[in-house]
């Protein structure tokens, strides 16, 4: 504050230091800071860039484990519609905040991945021009059928049809999910397996309990019968 304009010179020195520094500091030379990414996830060269439409920029799709763009439907491998997890319960359609999901339930049941006859989505459309990538549909889905994709190159010259993603384009295999979100997918699979095991254990316990109950019932009935017989004998004796 001693000389007039001192503050301005001080500020100018900072600007100059930054300007010169941008040519010498190593961490300032590159614009993108990928330091938090694992080495093997970095795009290695321009050759990694996709040449065909629909192909993904290699490995940059796994920007983070939780990166999300638009939803996709999961199937367990093989023919997509044979192993689709979605049973068209329409919970995601109801809960979707911007209402971008449209589902039509099938009229007949078909065996799904779990081996049980279930309904399946006859139509499953997501309007990605409306979707806001909030992931609410993923959280409310009780069947782990819908998860977030990280595909981002979706630009299209077709404004209406091109941004309406149909069921067959939404279907992706669980392997693909493991590839784009490894940690999340592993955690999800583990949770599903645990739940299945717990369910089976419960079922087993229930079945055992039923058998036990039936046995007890039979025993009780037998006892009652023998008592009755005894009573009859008594009566007969009188």
């Amino acid at each position, binding site marked *: 504050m001693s000389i007039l304009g001192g*503050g301005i010179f001080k*500020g100018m020195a900072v600007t100059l230091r930054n300007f010169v520094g941008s040519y010498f500091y190593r961490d300032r030379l590159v614009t993108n*800071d990928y330091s938090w990414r694992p080495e093997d996830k970095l795009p290695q060269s321009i050759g990694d860039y996709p040449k065909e439409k629909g192909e993904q920029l290699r490995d940059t799709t796994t920007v*983070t484990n*939780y990166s999300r763009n638009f939803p996709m439907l999961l199937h367990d491998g093989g023919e997509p519609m044979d192993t689709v997890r979605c049973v068209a319960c329409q919970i995601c359609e109801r809960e979707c905040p911007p209402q971008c999901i449209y589902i039509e339930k099938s009229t007949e049941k078909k065996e799904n991945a779990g081996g049980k006859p279930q309904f399946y989505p006859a139509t499953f459309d997501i309007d990605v021009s409306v979707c806001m990538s909030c992931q*609410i549909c993923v*959280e409310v889905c009780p069947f782990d059928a819908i998860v977030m994709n990280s595909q981002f190159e979706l630009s299209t010259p077709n404004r209406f049809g091109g941004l309406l993603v149909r069921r067959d384009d939404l279907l992706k295999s669980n392997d693909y999910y493991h590839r784009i979100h490894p940690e999340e997918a592993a955690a999800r699979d583990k949770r599903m397996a645990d739940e299945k095991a717990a369910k089976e254990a419960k079922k087993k316990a229930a079945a055992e309990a039923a058998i036990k109950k039936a046995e007890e019932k039979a025993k009780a009935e037998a006892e009652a019968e023998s008592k009755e017989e005894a009573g009859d004998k008594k009566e007969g004796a009188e």
Partner: protein
Amino acid sequence: MTSAAPNYELLQQDGLETSLLEVSMGPHHPSTHGVFRMDVKLDGETVVDLKPVFGYLHRNHEKLAENMTYLSSMPFTDRLDYFNSMTNNWAYALAAEKLIEVEVPERAEYLRVIMAELTRLVNHVSLVGFFLNDLGALGTPLMYAFREREKILDLFEQASGARMMCNYFRFGGLRNDVPEGWLGRAREVADRFPVFLDEYEQLLCENEIILSRTQGVGVLSRELAISAGITGPMLRASGVNYDLRKVDQYGIYDRFKFRVPYGEAGDCYDRFMIRMLEMRESIEILKQALDGIEDGPVMGNAPRVFKPKPAEVYGRIEGPKGELGFYLIADGTPKPYRYRVRPPSLINLTVLRDMCLGGKIADTVIILGSIDIVLGEVDR
């Protein structure tokens, strides 16, 4: 609001009749931070009257939320004040957690504080950048500020999957735990940030141009600030020591040691400096939270869709811009009967006219910049 405007008559000078000039600033004026319009009446360069006009970005937020379940409107709160999606989430989660009475796990509470303080850094650093932009320092300060902001947004992206529309908080905790190594990276950011702040202070705080443009400009008196319901850094710049983190001690803010800076003059310079000082306190809280955090679950036992008992609740937090509150009335259905947001931007904007009257037209730009509004929150 009382009119402090002097009664300007048409001025007679040297026999020539002069008249007041009406200028419509905005809605696309670069200084209005969005689609906001000011009808300014000018006598020469002096502001005689000012009428703020807003609502261009109205998106029906409250009515939308009344027609969807409690969880579904969580992503919409991101879009209120799109700089601070994390704190918006927190305010809404606080209100809804009062409805369903759910315990938040320890680790989630710590992560919430970390996210909120990182958000405060994001908000203040970009505010200071834009404020300098309004002053005419085009580019340099804003770019320096955004360079730092980007590091924090990277952290948000790694944790929640999105840079700005995080949608990370849930009733009873957080959506997911932070990935491995995240806390270390957060500490790195917290450690490096003061270096940037020192540089920024060197660049700006003693600059004679900034001093002469901001000191004594747009003075908001303590009395007016209190009676108009001003909150946040703007209230503290006017000399009122009021911070909801100290008053309510929501979450686990009672565990942290930090100071609440407050100003004296209530002019634009104080409002600018308050933000600079608050950033340093935020870093202190961040460091304490990063020290205290322990492993554990991040999600309490809360249902996704629920039907709360009929009740009225109000959840509020100290957002970076002021008191952000959500008022919910539950009527026993899965949807709120009434959903009301108390937006700090809108309420702080109400004193714009009082601060601008009698000043120069060029100062209205700075005064508006120092209020720190985001039109997404003003219009909702």
